[in-house]
């Protein structure tokens, strides 16, 4: 009786063959399976006579079965011509460019699918008006903390201002949001001045706003994410009344993805007259500066001193939104520049320190070589842009200050290590056909370095060149050296 392990191994091998057979064209599949099963039967009988089981034998049998995938793949390709073409493209420049294009296509597709990346790539949806600042208490170290009470905001708005021509206030708090029969969910709701969205210049989808403007209820703008998540993207939601906390509010619009670029994330915003905003926790104040105040701004900030009627004064910072919402393009360009500067610290940037011992490629080959290098760099830089956006903003629709830092780090490392790969890859490509050299072989021994060279020899599969890489650089053999193979070597390389 056969042990249970034997059945497991047999089932595994059959499973491998069956999986490989999926690759085989339908009309050849039955015969192909028949041949491989017969061969497997003989392999098992030869390797494990009398049902003897050992891990080493099973590894050999599994290795035999894995070869079925190559056989099936060959049949899938169909003809001899295509098989030869496969051998020719293996490690070739075209294959390299193909894979780079595939990665670029994938990252570009993800960038178009992800709402977060779309919002970052199309800043026109969230670009705020110029000369807008966020006023923060100077004693608070965090730029993103709510520091201004609504009473102070009202006082500023009442007084005639020399440097500011409009203000708006908002505050974020957790409230229960419910519509129709559902029980309600706790969401972050912003209580904002009625003029805030107009002041920011945000475009809010509001098809029925005109029809509903005369209602007595407070008006509510939903975030795009909240509209999708809590209301199932209901196209008829605008104009309907929902409940937020204790109040009935009328939905008048839906903000586009990523439109909200201010501190504090919210799922909805209730537009309120300044007088009705309840006193309570501190909020944020947005101010629009007059053109004359713009000259006071330095490095995106302006220092503001407020004198109270009792003679005391308080300090505030005005922080420009233009600085906060510069978008991903500037970060990307900066990281690309930084990567080019940092590259020499990782690897030698020279790709011309390879001397031919007996042959010099033609100038057209050199042009093709440089064009290939340029193509790889262009692909890499484009991939870096889309991939860094994908990794930073794929799961996050809302804007956050940390996202810029994440994009910076991701973009920098992709670009830096990508450039390192480009340079190293270029150095290992045959100058004649641009195939990657392969089949590394150790030559010589280290103790005889001064008598004969020792290192690694790599071969171009097209039969054009050998690359000798010294194991221990010496004064007479310090850099890798290309050895040109003349036509007498051709017979070793099959067409």
């Amino acid at each position, binding site marked *: 009786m056969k042990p249970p392990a034997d059945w497991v191994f047999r089932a595994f091998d059959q499973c491998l063959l069956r999986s490989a057979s999926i690759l085989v064209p339908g009309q050849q599949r039955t015969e192909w399976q*028949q*041949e491989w*099963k*017969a*061969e497997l*039967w*003989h*392999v098992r*009988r*030869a390797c494990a006579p009398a049902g003897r089981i050992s891990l080493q034998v099973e590894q050999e049998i599994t*290795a*035999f*079965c*894995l*070869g*079925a*995938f*190559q*056989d099936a*793949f*060959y*049949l899938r390709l169909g*003809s*001899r011509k295509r*098989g030869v073409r496969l051998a020719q493209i293996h490690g070739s420049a075209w294959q390299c460019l193909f894979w780079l294009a595939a990665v670029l296509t994938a990252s570009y597709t993800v960038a178009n699918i992800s709402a977060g990346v779309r919002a970052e790539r199309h800043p026109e949806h969230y670009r705020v008006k110029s000369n807008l600042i966020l006023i923060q208490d100077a004693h608070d170290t965090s730029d993103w903390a709510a520091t201004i009470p609504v009473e102070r905001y009202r006082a500023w708005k009442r007084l005639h201002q020399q440097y500011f021509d409009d203000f708006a206030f908002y505050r974020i708090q957790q409230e229960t949001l419910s519509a129709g029969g559902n029980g309600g969910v706790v969401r972050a709701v912003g209580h904002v001045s009625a003029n805030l969205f107009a002041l920011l210049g945000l475009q809010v989808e509001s098809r029925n706003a005109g029809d509903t403007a005369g209602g007595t209820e407070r008006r509510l703008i939903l975030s795009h994410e909240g509209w999708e998540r809590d209301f199932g993207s209901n196209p008829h939601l605008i104009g309907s009344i929902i409940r937020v906390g204790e109040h009935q509010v009328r939905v008048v619009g839906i903000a586009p993805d990523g439109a909200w670029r201010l501190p504090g994330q919210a799922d909805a915003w209730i537009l309120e007259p300044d007088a009705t905003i309840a006193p309570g926790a501190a909020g944020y104040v947005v101010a629009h500066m007059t053109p004359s105040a713009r000259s006071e701004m330095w490095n995106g900030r302006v220092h503001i001193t407020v004198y109270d009627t009792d003679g005391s004064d308080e300090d505030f910072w005005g922080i420009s939104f233009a600085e906060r919402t510069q978008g991903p393009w500037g970060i990307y360009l900066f990281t690309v520049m930084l990567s080019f500067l940092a590259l020499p610290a990782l690897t030698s940037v020279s790709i011309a320190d390879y001397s031919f011992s007996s042959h010099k490629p033609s100038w057209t080959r050199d042009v093709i070589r440089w064009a290939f290098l340029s193509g790889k760099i262009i692909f890499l830089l484009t991939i870096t842009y889309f991939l860094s956006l994908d990794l930073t903003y794929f799961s996050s629709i809302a804007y956050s200050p940390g996202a810029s830092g994440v994009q910076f780090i991701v973009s920098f490392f992709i670009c830096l290590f990508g450039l390192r790969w480009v340079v190293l890859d270029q150095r290992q490509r045959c100058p004649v056909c641009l195939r990657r050299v392969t089949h590394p072989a150790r030559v010589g021994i280290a103790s005889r370095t001064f008598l004969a060279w020792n290192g690694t020899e790599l071969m171009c599969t097209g039969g054009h060149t050998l690359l000798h890489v010294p194991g221990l650089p010496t004064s007479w053999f310090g850099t890798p050296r290309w050895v040109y193979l003349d036509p007498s070597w051709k*017979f*070793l*390389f*099959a*067409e």
Partner: protein
Amino acid sequence: MASEAKLSHTAAMILQAIDAGFVYGFSIMEMTGLPSGTVYPAMRRLESDDLIRSQWERQSIADAEQRPARKYYKLTATGRLTLETSRKRYPLLERMIPSEETKSI
């Protein structure tokens, strides 16, 4: 002409093994030391180049020996010519895999 086509050393080894009497995939693997992932695709290519021909053995023979029927390969006339050319190019081929006639000598 196919007989003048240059064969890789691997393909020449497989032709030589078939000529030497190793007529199915696993025996060729054992003789040449090549893995299955190389031998079987190479044989497909040799067959499509009309250098070898395959034939299933009779089911009655396999049944009598209580084993599955297997597929045998043999050289075609073109394959013999190509092998002769390859032997000149790779002189060690016959010493690595002696053919039946060589063994009898």
